[in-house]
């Protein structure tokens, strides 16, 4: 078991190394003269030369990669061309906001995914099932940014109950940073009004972001529950007269969760991709909006940093999912221990 997990860790580390090579080629080699890009077209030639020497750009490409990777492992991601600050600082500032958003979306995704999936199973082939199926199609056919536009129109202009931009309202002091997650920080301070305000700002982007994932996970949950429903043990439970809801939530849900977890975990990791446009539409100061600004301004250092951070998050998620699934499923748990 432990050996298997270790093997996984090693293979994911290799993927991470591969990702760093890919990012290096894509962002450092392909755009051409990195030093010139970093300093802008009007910088004097000697400054560019000096930066080239400092960044080891005058060496061969493998040597450049070595220095680049060494810098990253020491926490030096370079300086952003736009914000003129070290990218590590920028990321430390923006990442918690995105994590908070993604966490809330993930909670929505898991709860609503399971609830809708179980409801669709319970009323399988009846009208609630049909409604849920239509909803899940809607979630799949429209990307998060379209839902963001529609949700803004609905909840901010037609029925103005939710704020449309930022993390907190103007006039409310940001919390003392402990975790970087505003809701948690406010709660730690005992400032419930602040926590509520931060939550209100988060709700709409989080729902919009989780919509596609909810549809997907509800579909997966329904599919595996319906197929488990036909197994003899479900019929036996029904014959014993166990209440339908108890059969569904207690006995059917657990064996059906496997595929649900692997798909939903992937969706949660993919949230970081969908967050790009949602964050910039809601003007939410997260890592994805930072990354998008960097892309649009050709800030290659910041782009490569964001790619690496996103890659680490997704790979980490995959690893955790593998471990969770192998603990959850006795078939995998026991087969691997021998």
């Amino acid at each position, binding site marked *: 078991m432990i050996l298997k997990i270790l093997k996984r860790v090693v293979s994911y580390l290799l993927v991470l190394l591969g990702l760093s090579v*890919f990012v290096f080629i894509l962002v450092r080699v392909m755009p051409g003269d990195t030093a010139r890009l970093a300093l802008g077209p009007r910088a004097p030639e000697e400054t560019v030369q000096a930066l080239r020497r400092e960044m080891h750009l005058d060496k061969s490409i493998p040597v450049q990669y070595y220095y680049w990777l060494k810098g990253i492992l020491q926490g030096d991601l370079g300086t952003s061309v736009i914000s003129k600050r070290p990218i590590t600082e920028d990321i430390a500032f923006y990442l918690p906001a995105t994590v908070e958003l993604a966490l809330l979306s993930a909670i929505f995704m898991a709860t609503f995914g399971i609830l809708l999936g179980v409801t669709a199973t319970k009323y399988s082939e009846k009208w609630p099932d049909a409604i849920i199926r239509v909803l899940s199609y809607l979630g799949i056919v429209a990307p998060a940014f379209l839902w963001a536009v529609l949700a803004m129109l609905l909840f901010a202009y037609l029925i103005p109950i939710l704020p449309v931009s930022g993390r907190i309202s103007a006039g409310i002091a940001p919390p003392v940073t402990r975790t970087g997650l505003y809701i948690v920080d406010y709660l730690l301070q005992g400032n419930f009004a602040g926590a509520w305000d931060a939550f209100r700002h988060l709700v709409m982007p989080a729902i919009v972001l989780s919509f596609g994932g909810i549809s997907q996970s509800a579909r997966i949950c329904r599919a595996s529950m319906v197929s488990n429903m036909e197994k003899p043990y479900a019929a036996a439970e029904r014959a014993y007269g166990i209440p339908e809801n108890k059969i569904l939530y207690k006995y059917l849900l657990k064996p059906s969760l496997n595929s649900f977890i692997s798909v939903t975990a992937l969706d949660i990791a993919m949230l970081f991709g969908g967050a790009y446009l949602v964050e910039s539409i809601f003007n939410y100061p997260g890592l994805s909006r930072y990354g998008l600004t960097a892309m649009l301004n050709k800030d290659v250092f910041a*782009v490569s940093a964001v790619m690496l951070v996103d890659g680490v998050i997704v790979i980490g998620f995959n690893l955790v999912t593998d471990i969770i699934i192998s603990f959850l499923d006795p078939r995998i748990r026991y087969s691997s221990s021998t």
Partner: protein
Amino acid sequence: MESCPNKIDISQVDVSRIPRRNAGENIRKLWYKFSLNRVSVVGLALILLIAAAAIFYRSIVPYPEHIGAMVDFKNACMPPSWQHLCGTDQAGRDILSRIIYAFRGALTMGVVAILAILPLGGVLGLVAGYWNGRFVSNLIMRVADVFLSLPTLILVMCVSSIMTPSTRNAMLAISISWWPWYTRLVYGIVTSTRNEVYIRSAEVLGANVWHILLKEILPNALGPILTKMTLDFGVAILAGATLSFVGMGEQPPAPSLGAMVSAGVGYLPDQWWMAVFPALAIMLIVLGFNLLGDGIGDMLSDAE
């Protein structure tokens, strides 16, 4: 091993009496299975309609001159009316005309980008699956893992951000980011059929490697590929729309659905039609491909 009592003696079977289905009959049978699911037929109709509108746009578009860089500020921001079914945009151009023309870009972006990368992704998957465990296979699959370790949308955006924004580069970015999905799909199918008796027999008979790969193994993979491809057309169109939403796709004045939505967002809520109709157009086209893809998947899985 005891001999089975019901065993058929192959030499006694008259091969000529086994009915052989011809291609036409197969297609008719498949179409019958496909048509049983009304929803997929709707999807097919939707896609055909959109494709026809995109191809024959000249004869449908109500205001052909509104497609390019035209300004008519007298009629700017007009709400939907009988003259302009979807209203007009900030420069007074008919939104419906621009949507119909933008279907061309959307379809090309999604369909061509996927079709262009399919052979490469597929062949890599065939090679990796057939020589599974060898160095080539490991190399291909690990490179695919690296590409798949980033969310596809991020990858598409990062790749296109380092290139100059244009339709061709947006398609290139989609292609570069998409091939590993097909490699992984084909790889899975090949490794599972790799040790079937008929493949082994072909090898023993000394069949050419490419014959085995293309004629014996590939047909197993065609169904799943076709299904995934149809669904992916929709996803790739979404990716293209996302790119043009942020300005990395098709460049103005040529209309593109994503750019129209992003221009319209600034006019919410009063001039809602500017963002909502292009958004609905994106949903419609993606919905069509999703319904069609699900239908094709059902059709081929039941076909056995």
